[in-house]
């Protein structure tokens, strides 16, 4: 290997005052996720429900074209807030969201811990908040792609297919609900995944934790509910809590007859605890006592 075949030259440019100094972290995070084996396939599968619901919206507006499919006098389905709630909280979508988190979130912090790269980030003019924001935005990007974006597209398509603004006049709060619920579920998963990713240096363990914890809480709920028949055990399940909050945000009846506020508080508490733990776990230097 030859050293100094070409001399060192000073850089003539000037540093930029970037509004979003964390953006390179997000951009590379997204890029690296797309490079992962099978990710594109999983991501496509996650978009399948969105496509199906979009077709549903089309059918609902062109019902006369599909009369052959339904019995006379019956309604195939109607597009209303419940339709949106069903999309946002359906089990398949939540499951696929967790799968996406496994791909894009497991190594977010754990890889940096494993390869000692935190000091590389923090030796740059980057604050801890920028680092977290950059990492969390990777999760935000993928979750918005399967929650917020389809939700907004559904509304637009509904308006286009119907050719009038009746739908939006009928449910003016629906866009806000889609936005708030997307932000809520994305925020929760961002903290949940980043917490687990900061707990271990091995991304495989983290992947198992992300997936396992989600399933485990649901299985635990099933077991306790089977034994004690108490609806309050639903609060153990991450999935049920997300569905309860989703139902409330879309002004629908919750699946379990308990206040959605309990679920909301539990998920917020998990997020706050996660934030505190992540902050403590991510230090720029290993301090040896």
């Amino acid at each position, binding site marked *: 290997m030859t*050293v100094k075949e070409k001399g060192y030259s000073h850089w003539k440019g000037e540093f930029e005052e970037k509004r979003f100094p964390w953006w390179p972290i997000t951009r590379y995070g997204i890029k690296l996720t797309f490079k992962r084996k099978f990710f594109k396939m999983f991501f496509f599968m996650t978009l399948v429900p969105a496509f199906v619901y979009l077709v549903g919206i089309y059918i609902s507006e062109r019902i006369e074209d599909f009369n052959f499919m339904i019995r006379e006098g019956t309604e195939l389905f109607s597009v209303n807030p419940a339709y949106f709630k069903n999309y946002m909280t359906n089990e398949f979508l939540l499951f696929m969201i967790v799968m996406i988190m496994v791909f894009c979130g497991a190594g977010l912090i754990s890889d940096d811990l494993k390869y000692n790269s935190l000091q590389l980030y923090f030796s*740059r003019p980057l604050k801890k908040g920028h680092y977290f924001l950059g990492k969390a935005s990777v999760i935000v990007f993928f979750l918005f792609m399967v929650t917020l974006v389809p939700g907004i597209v559904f509304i637009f398509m509904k308006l286009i297919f119907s050719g009038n603004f009746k739908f939006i006049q009928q449910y003016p709060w629906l866009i806000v609900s889609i936005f708030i619920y997307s932000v809520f579920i994305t925020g929760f998963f961002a903290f949940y995944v980043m917490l687990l990713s900061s707990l271990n240096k091995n991304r495989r363990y983290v992947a198992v934790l992300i997936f396992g914890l989600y399933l485990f809480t649901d299985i635990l709920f099933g077991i306790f509910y089977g034994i004690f028949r108490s609806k309050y055990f639903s609060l153990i399940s991450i999935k049920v809590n997300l569905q309860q909050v989703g139902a409330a945000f879309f002004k629908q009846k919750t699946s379990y007859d308990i206040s959605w506020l309990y679920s909301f508080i539990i998920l917020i508490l998990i997020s706050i605890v996660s934030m505190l733990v992540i902050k403590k776990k991510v230090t720029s230097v290993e301090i040896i*006592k």
Partner: protein
Amino acid sequence: MSIEIKNIHFSYGQVKALDGVDISLPKGAIGLLGPNGAGKSTLLRILLGFLTPDSGEGSVLGYDIRTQQDVIRKYVGYMPENDCLLPGMDAVTFTSYLGELSGMPRQEAMKRAHEVLFYVGLEESRYRMLETYSAGMKQRLKLAQSIVHDPKLIFLDEPTSGLDPQGRTEILNLILDISSKKDIQVLISSHILSDIESACSFVVILNKGKLASEGKISDLKQIDYSLYEVRLKGEAGGFINKLKELNYRIEQTADGLLKVYLPQHADSQDMFKAALDEKVQIRHFVKSETSLEDRFAQAVGVD
């Protein structure tokens, strides 16, 4: 002064890492020496703003170490001691990514990444995944990322650790080139004295969290004693005791060589008189060059 700190204290819980350190460092290549646990890495981390001192004040390139850490990091490069990389990237992506995080525009960072990788000798491997890099290549890459944003000052933490002799020489040559010809100040933290001696003009020695010595290497080598290497035939015990009575410091190596440190005004003839008295023959008598190692040993109080 590029780096100036006054009365810096820092503790990890009950363990004092830095205890009232005052340093004023001039421009040029500076060596930071000290045995393990002396506080070298802690000092570097404080200068970079990774750690906030418990008390004391200081500045790097004129920027306050307590309040202007972000600005300091913009103009300072850091080459960490241990292996650190970002998996899934090649060297060009890695280096330009870190350039971008330093505040460089994206296109400029990419262009600059190619230049510095060429400079450190990684031009042929710049598109290889970092996971496949050897120890020597990783050291070069760490150096490349530390200079990608053209810093005014570089902190190098054990830059030659884990390298074979040839790799060590090549890295030292690069450091020497950067510090001597490119108007970039370099602060090298190391416990390999020969590295410091070959690359630096000024040295700071820390011991147990305190400043043990500082100054130009050439001045530090002008120490207040003469060093002689002596080999004897016969029992050395009486000879050593006799010289110790005359306040000479003596070290004995494993192969029986005696290193005799004579105080400034002492007469070397005293050694021959002592040999005559103790009936031993002096078979080897050479005045030795004092090295940084001698000064280091004196400063940290080890034989």
